[in-house]
């Protein structure tokens, strides 16, 4: 079949981050192509380029053999390219019909429009309540409104960004059916997802992305899931043992050490009813590094938030040593000696408009070491900062500079230094190596190992499987908010871990 879309050598760089690197793609009408990759792989960036939100630095896009320039969302609509974002772009206060008609030229909005919308609903077997504002609709119905928006605009290419991430389990099947119908009418559908079972069900081909590059475009039917997940995570040989030789000299026999953290039967249910964490049981011993592996979005972030106090679990208990901390405040947990390196260092871990030295102190400013009597001692803060800057080789080394002036790696060092010194019992780190180069990554890993060796329990949550495996004594794998298995790196293969990561809810006990 004559290709509908031809993407050649697309590049996109933001600052010093290469978001898209030499992306090439050929796609035809009536195809469903899944785009698979971890967070930061470039899936959403590619979609944003196709939809006109970003302009590529180089490369070209051809539609039916002619080069097109998608300079704005309006241009994308004109070319028949539509997208449904993960978190929707609907006007809550307006009805479904109004949302569908926003931005269209006058002729298309006449009385015939109403009839056409109803017709589309019938064709695709959609149930939509046209009399209520969108804000009061269930998520599944909102999504159908989004799809109707695209259908009404006669898109020939539709991009779906993690469409099932917001749906309840019962809404997924009808949704996938709708997608199938759409593909059958000749639409080219891009299905961005990291859920391998759905990709298997709905896609013809899968395009795997990693760090902005296309790792491969493979037919779904003949590619095993383990190969897909391996490519996604950057391993070329799925059968190799998880443990790389020479990465860890000393394995801790953790079962003999004191229990530092016991998480019992912890569940977290959202107000929508979605089960974010389900009956999670974990035990960490002093001096042990427990890795939490899994594809992003399976509850890892929420687990860290529940343990550190940012969220409160719906049920279950958490014990720090002998002390129950299930309901205690963040401040109390900070005082109890829990260090926390959060996922988003810009939004949570640091205050960019404050100086480097103030960033060492802001999380527990009332703590004795920052104070002189009842007042903040700026001198003490400076001293502590200077020591940390030297110990961690933070550059530039002037602690009075604003934190925003430092690179990602050095910013992470600030957070790490601060939380490592705080962690007397437990250190929780989430995505500690995100956005860091090789040197900075190595530094972070070494620091975490040193912390564990000093007797502190470490909970290491990351989607970079390679890093998790090289540093952890044991690894717990999460999928759909549950722990699907706990393994030791030297006794497992990547294939096993891949299977644990992609276990569907029914398979998990």
């Amino acid at each position, binding site marked *: 079949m004559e290709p509908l879309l031809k993407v050649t050598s697309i590049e996109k760089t933001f600052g010093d981050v290469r978001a898209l690197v030499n992306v090439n793609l050929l796609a035809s009408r009536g195809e469903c192509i899944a785009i698979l990759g971890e967070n930061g792989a470039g899936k959403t960036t590619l979609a944003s380029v196709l*939809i006109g*939100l*970003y302009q590529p630095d180089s490369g070209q896009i051809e539609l039916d053999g002619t080069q097109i320039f998608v300079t*704005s*969302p*309006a241009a994308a*609509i004109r070319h028949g390219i539509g*997208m449904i*974002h993960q978190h929707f*772009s*609907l*006007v*809550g*206060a*307006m009805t479904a019909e*109004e*949302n569908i*008609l*926003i*931005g*269209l030229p*006058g002729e298309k*909005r006449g009385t015939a429009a109403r009839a056409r919308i109803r017709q589309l609903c019938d064709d695709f077997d959609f149930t939509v309540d046209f009399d209520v504002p969108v804000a009061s609709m269930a998520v599944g119905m909102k999504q159908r409104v989004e799809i109707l*928006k695209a259908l009404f605009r006669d898109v020939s290419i539709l991009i779906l960004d993690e469409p099932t991430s917001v749906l309840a389990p019962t809404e997924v099947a009808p949704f996938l059916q709708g997608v199938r119908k759409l593909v059958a009418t000749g639409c080219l559908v891009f299905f961005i997802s990291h859920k391998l079972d759905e990709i298997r069900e709905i896609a013809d081909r899968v395009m795997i992305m990693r760090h902005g590059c296309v790792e491969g475009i493979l037919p779904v039917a003949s590619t095993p899931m383990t190969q897909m997940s391996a490519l996604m995570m950057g391993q070329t040989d799925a059968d190799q043992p998880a443990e790389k030789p020479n990465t860890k000299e000393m394995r801790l026999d953790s079962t003999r050490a004191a229990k530092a953290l016991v998480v019992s039967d912890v569940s977290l249910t959202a107000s929508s009813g979605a089960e974010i964490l389900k009956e999670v049981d974990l035990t960490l011993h002093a001096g042990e590094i427990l890795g939490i592996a899994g594809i992003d979005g399976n509850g890892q972030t929420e687990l860290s938030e529940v343990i550190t106090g940012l969220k409160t679990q719906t049920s279950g208990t958490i014990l720090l040593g002998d002390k129950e901390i299930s309901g205690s405040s963040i401040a109390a947990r900070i005082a109890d000696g829990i260090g926390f390196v959060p996922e988003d260092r810009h939004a949570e871990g640091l205050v960019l408009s404050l100086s480097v030295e103030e960033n060492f102190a802001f999380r527990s400013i009332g703590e004795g070491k920052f104070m002189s009597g009842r007042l903040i001692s700026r001198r003490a803060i400076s001293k502590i900062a200077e020591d940390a800057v030297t110990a961690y080789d933070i550059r530039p080394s002037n602690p009075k500079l604003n934190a925003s002036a430092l690179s990602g790696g050095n910013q992470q060092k600030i957070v790490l230094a601060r939380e490592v010194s705080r962690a007397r019992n437990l250190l929780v780190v989430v995505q500690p190596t995100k956005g860091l180069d090789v040197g900075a990554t190595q530094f972070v890993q070494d620091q975490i190992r040193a912390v564990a060796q000093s007797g502190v329990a470490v909970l290491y949550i990351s989607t970079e499987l390679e890093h998790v495996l090289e540093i952890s004594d044991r690894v717990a794998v999460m999928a759909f908010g549950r722990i699907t298995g706990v393994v030791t790196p030297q006794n497992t293969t990547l294939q096993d871990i891949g299977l644990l990561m992609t276990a569907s809810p029914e398979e998990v006990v």
Partner: protein
Amino acid sequence: MFDPVLLSDVLAGTARLGTPIAFAALGGVIAERSGLYNIGLEGQILAGALGAAAGSFATGSALIGLGCGVICGLISGLFLGYMSIRLRINQLVGGIALNLLLAGLTAFLSRQIFGAQAGGARVEGFTQLHIPLLSDIPVLGPSLFSQDPLFYLLIGIAVLAWCWLMKSHKGLDLRAVGENPKAADLAGVPVLRMQYLAISVSGALAALAGVHLVLSQVYVFAEGMSAGKGFIALAAIILGRWSPIGAVCAALFFGFCDAAQFKLQFSSPEVPYQLFLILPYIASLIALVILGAKASAPASVGLPYDREHR
């Protein structure tokens, strides 16, 4: 209190005092519906007033005065738009700055144009328009149907604005911009262009308030003659639930309270007239708290839109 003459007087006063507030409130509604605060209404009223006085003074024609006033309003609206949209200055600060700027500028220019006796230079204005038959109705007639032409213009614009905003395609697009500019952008609506248009029209409407003050009420330009009406208009927008017709009704209600309290001072001096003055504000506050501002104010008002922001 129910003496028909008194009532008629109060109604007439309502129209007279409420019209400038209503024009300004209409302008404010259009701006806020597009997602932009217009705190500069007060200054824009003055801009319109000066334009009207200058135009009428120069040509002797009230209509040209009206045109000039509207143009001054458009320009000041555009300026506020530039500050808010392009420079991304905090919209509240921008509005306050505009008020200061225009208060000074209009005073300065009025002295240049009218000379030292600015207060004394009388200009040609609009005279009352008596609608045949309707103006003979007792009580309502003299007050509602014998008003100056700008009053009828107000009613006409209010209805038109409501129809456009709530029923037309572009009105839908504008409301989408104010509620969720990202969604509107993705649907192909030219967000920034619509905001610029909205804020300019907003300025023009507020300027009509000033035009009314000069050409229908006092026939001169006086420094600071807006006397807080631009701020009262902000309250009317809230009470009127961000609807063009609602805001105009609310503004007229403010006018009513003002007219009533004035009469009350003479007819019943023992009753504190301030009660009437406070009434509309308390009503707005109650409306805000009980009905919930979140439910009625455009969801994205005050937040500058940046396409590249994730």
